[in-house]
């Protein structure tokens, strides 16, 4: 099992709740039938930015990306990631329904100054079987 994401407070954070597994069938007359395939949402999205971090912190993030095989292994997120949200709001996004997070792409690193960088990461929250 991979280690938890480093306990860091992001400088920017945005997320999108998951969608429910449904499919809509539309007839030629325009009527629709919707079928539900499951009772829980999937495909949560979370984008985090860590501005002006030191190389030591940058290394922590890059190490975590490598340790989780770059999106192959899922992991949990610490509460620090959701700093500023109350517990009720955090429950909607931190681990709703037992989802685990994975990288959807490699971290994007922008060098700001010597030893200082800004990192953006995109995560997807998916359900384990």
């Amino acid at each position: 099992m991979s280690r938890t994401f480093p306990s860091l407070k992001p400088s920017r954070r945005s997320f999108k709740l998951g969608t429910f597994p449904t499919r809509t069938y539309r007839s030629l007359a325009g009527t629709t039938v919707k079928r539900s395939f499951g009772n829980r949402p999937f495909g949560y999205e979370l984008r985090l930015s860590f501005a002006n971090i030191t190389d030591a912190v940058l290394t922590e993030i890059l190490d975590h990306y490598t340790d989780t095989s770059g999106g192959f292994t899922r992991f949990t997120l610490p509460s620090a990631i959701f700093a500023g949200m109350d517990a009720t709001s955090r429950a909607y996004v931190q681990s709703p329904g037992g989802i685990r997070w994975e990288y959807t792409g490699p971290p994007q690193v922008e060098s700001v100054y010597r030893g200082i960088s800004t990192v953006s990461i995109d995560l997807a929250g998916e359900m384990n079987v």
Partner: protein
Amino acid sequence: MATEIRICQFFDLTTNNGRRHRYQNYFIAETRTYGGQSFSFAPFQADGALASLNGDNQQLRVLFPNLEVVVRLAEDGEGNRLSVLALTTAWLTGSGQIANTFTDYFIGTGAGFNEDTVELRFRSSMDSVGAGFPGRTFTSDNVGILPLNAELYLR
């Protein structure tokens, strides 16, 4: 106008060594009780002809992700040969309660593997009714050894 339907399938497989494997594919990470039995969650899908007027020789394919438990299930039944599947399709209410169910029975004919899925193949069991009702039934008294599926050869 929109109609919303929620369908859960209950997969009850008896392998030829007598072991039972019960799964459902709607209530994620939950165990549901149906018919007095517990069905744990597994992300399978069933496709193929499930019913016809004659009811015989229908082919059904059940796809599972290539999980260890599923590989074990297939190996446990010697590659899904001659296992018995009771597949129940259940219509659910908005609150997740079962409203209506239909159950079909199938006989395992084999399994297939690839790098990410396990495919269990079935044919319908010998339960054809046809035009005459009640249907005539083969018994060991009138045909001898009973066939296990609808593949009959008249010679």
